[in-house]
């Protein structure tokens, strides 16, 4: 094809940005190559592993099977966007660190973004619900156990249930 580009304007990690984007690009391509947001990982490129997961307008999407041009007008959040203005990290990131939920680290960014969506619901999910909400990610290092702990503990702490969180 003759090269086809389109101006894509969106908000990425709180900042309004726009760039000419190759219409053939996936959102993964755009975030990694055009914005150098390399926390967005490529593990399968067909929406089966969850490593490229980002939040778009409050919902999680595998950016590998999301066309970059669809980002027009959207608000996108990647792991890089979770840090506070002075680089302080969020409670869920700290929980991943504290619970040894991070091993090789390749699936971690995608998982943390799904955890963010779960926590934003501001309600207490059952264990089975948490598992289901995180089931769009594959991990080969952790057996999911410590990721489960990190997410559940953070959920309970945000709901003011610190004592219960300590028992997870």
């Amino acid at each position, binding site marked *: *094809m003759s090269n086809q580009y389109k101006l894509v304007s969106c908000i990425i990690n709180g900042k309004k940005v726009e760039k000419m984007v190759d219409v*053939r690009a*996936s959102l993964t391509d755009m975030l990694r190559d055009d914005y150098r947001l390399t926390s967005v990982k490529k593990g399968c490129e*067909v*929406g089966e592993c969850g490593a490229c997961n980002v939040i778009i307008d409050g*919902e999680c999407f*595998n950016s590998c099977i999301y*066309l970059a041009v*669809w980002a027009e007008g959207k608000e996108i959040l990647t792991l890089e966007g979770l840090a506070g203005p002075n680089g302080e990290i969020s409670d869920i990131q700290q929980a991943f660190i504290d619970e040894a939920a991070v091993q090789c680290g390749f699936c971690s960014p995608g998982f943390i973004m799904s955890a963010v969506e779960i926590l934003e619901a501001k309600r207490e999910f059952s264990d089975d619900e948490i598992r289901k909400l*995180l089931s769009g990610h594959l991990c080969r290092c952790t057996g999911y156990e410590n990721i489960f702990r990190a997410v559940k503990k953070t959920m309970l702490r945000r709901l003011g249930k610190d004592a219960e969180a300590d028992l997870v």
Partner: protein
Amino acid sequence: MYDMKALYEAESVQHAIQLLIEHPEAQIIAGGSDVLVQMREGKRAGKELISIYMIDEMRGISYEEDGAIRIGSLTSFSHITKDPIIKEHINVLGEAVDMVGGPQIRNIGTIGGNTCNGVTSADSASTLHAWDAVVEITGPEGVRRIPIHEFYIKAGVVDLKPGEIQTAIIIPKKSYEGYKGHYIKYAMRNAMDIATTGCSVNVKLSEDKKTIEDVRIAYGVAGPVPMRAPSAEETAKGKPVSKETVKVFAKAVLEDINPRDSWRASKAFRQHIAVVLAERALKESIRLAGGEVDE
């Protein structure tokens, strides 16, 4: 990057139809969770795409004037599951599409895409068949509506003529009023999987909950396209709610279904599972409808 020849972005249904007429070879892309995967595989590589993803008028769930439930074709699975109208009248559809892939897939995948790709394993399809859904198709000649079982022509092929797109799926009031149903997805793992067999059953019980006034059952992956099991339905209509009725009903599905042998599962295994699913899905439907099957 995807190997596409060109991308046309439709801004409205009419615009999409116009683009389809201008580019008859082009492939429609809704959420893309199938089309983009196939494009990467090489199957659809080099094709023109018409993206309808940004057409918001095709999203959402509402009542039509006659009480039918209208589901815009671009409504995502997760939005169907969360929708209050669906929860009230046809919760089983919300449950069924909540078993597609994983959460991210359910946010991008659309009910229109799930039916237009014409695959037998689609988690929405057996439930839509079991509830006598109607497909709304919009094209250059206007709007037409056809029963969902007519929409499926053969594996991978649906009744969309040049210039046409599917714009909505409708569940008529008579199809849902008084019915309760249950869907069982049989898969090899509990998430991120496609159905080995899917079975959706719904029933309407008599007022005293002792008789099955109507029962409908449909399968995915029991044949090349999603299908009803009419012989099984006939065995149970008007019959008392009983263990015997359920048994006979479940066995009878073998007269209707035609699963194939493949590396994903043997025919014998699928047949065995189809009977077990029919039995369990009917029992659960009866329970949801307020009936009780004696053990």
